[in-house]
């Protein structure tokens, strides 16, 4: 079974508008990148970088770090392969799920809209 660990290495959160509040209606757009850092027979280490910006712009979160996938070659391949063009690779969903609680706490502290915890949907 694929074993995934996610480490946050850098975190930046900004409140972009004085009018922002937790209850404002706001969607977030995400810019995501993953890059291979190390690979072995039973593991793959990726760097990740995720930037969330609310629309309209009230807050921005930048989170980066590393994730390690441990498992067989096929399990790892499945973990990094997007099921289709419009859906993210499973590892990206897992990373977002793991870092979400941190982003949620920061959003509360900054008094900006909370991003949604659900699966990501590809933007226009």
């Amino acid at each position, binding site marked *: 079974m694929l074993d995934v660990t996610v480490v946050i290495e850098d975190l930046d959160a900004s409140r972009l508008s004085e009018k922002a509040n937790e209850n404002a209606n706001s969607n977030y*757009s995400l810019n995501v990148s993953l890059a291979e850092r190390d690979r072995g027979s039973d593991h793959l280490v990726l760097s990740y970088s995720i930037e969330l910006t609310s629309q309209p712009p009230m807050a921005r979160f930048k989170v980066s770090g590393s994730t390690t996938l441990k498992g067989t070659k096929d399990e790892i391949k499945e973990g990094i392969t997007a099921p289709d063009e419009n859906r993210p690779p499973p590892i990206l969903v897992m990373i977002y799920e793991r870092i979400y609680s941190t982003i949620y706490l920061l959003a509360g502290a900054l008094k900006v809209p909370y*991003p*949604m915890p659900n699966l990501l*949907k590809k*933007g226009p």
Partner: protein
Amino acid sequence: MVQETGTDLYSGILRFYSMNDVRKYMKSLLERYQRDYDRSSNVIGSLLRAEGGKGMEVIMSKGWAKVGAMFVDVTDPDKGGMELTFQLVTEMRPRISKTEEVIKTFESVEALPIATEATFLLYLHNGIPERLVIDTTETKPEAYTYKGDYVTVQ
């Protein structure tokens, strides 16, 4: 089940994508074996010191009997357990020596003419690296990268 002491000894084939990774893996194996060996031999050493000049008799049980295909100790669990630890330590020494020797002489393997795209199959037998295949048929996969834009919708 609770593991009391000892080392997990892998038998199988591992694929590596660089020679440096093979070396790093073997070094990590050796470090683990040495750590486990030290832990077990400290147990034996402490007991021998505590029992003064009594020698090996303090770790040799007389309670062994052959039952079926196994030896079973039902009368002297303390010495029986200690004897097992001693046997483990004795068996670990050659394993450590062999792994050390493989690492020490690994430079000669690294000096071989090796294609840059090659990958490496390492065969371990009871935890000892025994054979290496330099595989040019299955090459290292291209480095993984992914970029995407997404939205979360309320």
